[in-house]
């Protein structure tokens, strides 16, 4: 069981980390989802124990399955859900402003922006220098 869990976590994390390195933003988002779910699975794995359901009343003398990890993983799932939603909305905004989902396009647009600004500054400076007596 432990081996199955660790293999699953390893594969999820590995795939996710690989996807994170891609240029395509949707793949990056998918990578984030995979990586955070690897973490969730790991939390469950951290409290693997056999026993009866931890709901009162507990039959006397029985071992109880660990309830803490369930609470932890629920919180972690909610958080990763929220962050994924935020990331996707940001990616959507990138798409609506640039009509592209490629990180390279984005950095090109950024450089274009900057060089335009520099040009504006440069010409503005020249004009003001000429205007100064």
């Amino acid at each position, binding site marked *: 069981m432990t081996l199955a869990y660790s293999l699953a976590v390893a594969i999820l994390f590995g795939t996710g*980390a690989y996807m*994170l390195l891609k240029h395509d*933003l949707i793949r*990056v988002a998918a990578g*984030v989802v995979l*990586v*955070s779910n*690897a*973490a969730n699975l*790991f*939390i469950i*794995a*951290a*409290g*693997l*124990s056999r*026993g009866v359901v931890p709901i009162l009343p507990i039959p006397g003398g029985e*071992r109880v*399955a*660990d309830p*803490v*990890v369930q609470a*932890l993983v629920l*919180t*972690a799932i909610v*958080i990763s859900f*929220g*962050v994924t939603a*935020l*990331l996707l909305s*940001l*990616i959507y*905004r*990138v798409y609506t*402003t*640039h009509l592209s989902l490629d*990180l390279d396009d*984005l*950095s090109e*647009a*950024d450089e274009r*922006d*900057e060089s335009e600004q520099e040009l504006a500054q440069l010409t*503005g*400076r020249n004009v*003001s*220098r000429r205007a*100064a007596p």
Partner: protein
Amino acid sequence: MLLVFPLAVTWLAAVILAVLDGRRERVGYVAVGALAASAIGLVALMVDILRDGVAQQVAGNWAYGVGIQLRADVLDVTFALLSVVVILVATVFEVLGRVRSRVFPALACFMATGLIGLSLTGDAFNFYVFFEIAMISAYVLAGYGERTRQLRAALIFIIVNLLGSVLFLIAIAGLYHLTGTLDMLEISRRIPVVNEQPSILLATMIFVAFAVKLGIFPFHFWLAAVYTGTRPAVAAMLSGALANIGSYGLLRFGATMPRELELGAPVLLTLGAASIIYGGFQAISCRSATEVLAYSSIGQVGYILIALGIGGHVGLVAAVLFSIVNSINKTLLFLAVPLRGWLVGAVMAIAAFSVAGVPPSSGFFGKMGVFRAAVADDQPLVIALIFIGSALSFIYMFQLYNGRFWDISAEETRDGVVPSVLARRGLVCLLAAFVIVIGVWPEPLLYLSEQAAYAIENPIQTEPIPDQLAGD
């Protein structure tokens, strides 16, 4: 009551502000009021703790050992107060100009909530939850300007830091598996008896997670893009308050896992040295002011790592002291750089002196703390490094000053200078005056760092938590 108040007031304010239009001045001042109330509450809590010792409480009337612990010692409250004050100053700065986004005041309060919460909690998983509250508000704030540059910065910021957070979460789950508890004091009690190999692995993951937040040398690549891409108030919040997660987290988890910290000391020293050198040279080679500051942040956090790596009482005092001083310096610099007009030059000069560590600025005592720790530990290489680092910071700060205020033609002609809002300049002047006051009268700050280091070394004795709940 005192323990919950600072947290509750910002949290409530954040939830209420989230539905209001933050662009209105009045809404902005509500956020300022809530942050100020929280800061006052933290000061009261600090007075209380200095008098009566550690304050603690189990949330929600749960039995001890079952519910989430809130626990505050001097170190916790120092960092909570520092973060809230930085966010307060940055929010006032933004409100005095014009808030451009309707969510800004709410996000400032959420970030404060997260930062106070993670300082005051005694539970490792709760630490993660508050950490994420602070991080998520930072993710949104990083995209605050909505230009291509800021969007790209926000994307990089989210992706890199998300990976850091996931590593941290995995490490916490691992700690739970190893020790059977999430209470940090209890973990520190049980960790010495567990097997060394897994605990070193977990400590490394925790270190990487916080190193990403701090922007230490091999984990710095997101930092420059984000700090230069965002607005000054947001950059001040990120570098002055959010980066505290890194330094506070390293101190707190270092106290939880002292054996692992000691084993990692050579790594801390090496990475700290690499950060100082790399940040310094990169900053010298940069032209734009915010870029210089961004790389300077990478260099400055190196000192915190060095102080931690040296360890011992002097090392801890130096780490706390330097974190406080550095965070105030960075706030001042990021807020002052975009301003124009009378007095701004003086403020920049003070900030530059403080970063370089020239008396009578607060930076002098920060540097001196690290220097003293290096001398006490008899590490000539580290002493030399501190000198080199200071020289580098002196050069890039005055290059910055030179480019900004002497070589006016490079930026704009004198006639073209439009002075910034007077109130904003007043605020930075106040902050600069504070830097000088700390430098002239450093006793309170030294006392606080001394007490914080003492609190790390002598954790309070709580009754041990029974182990039968945890499955092993």
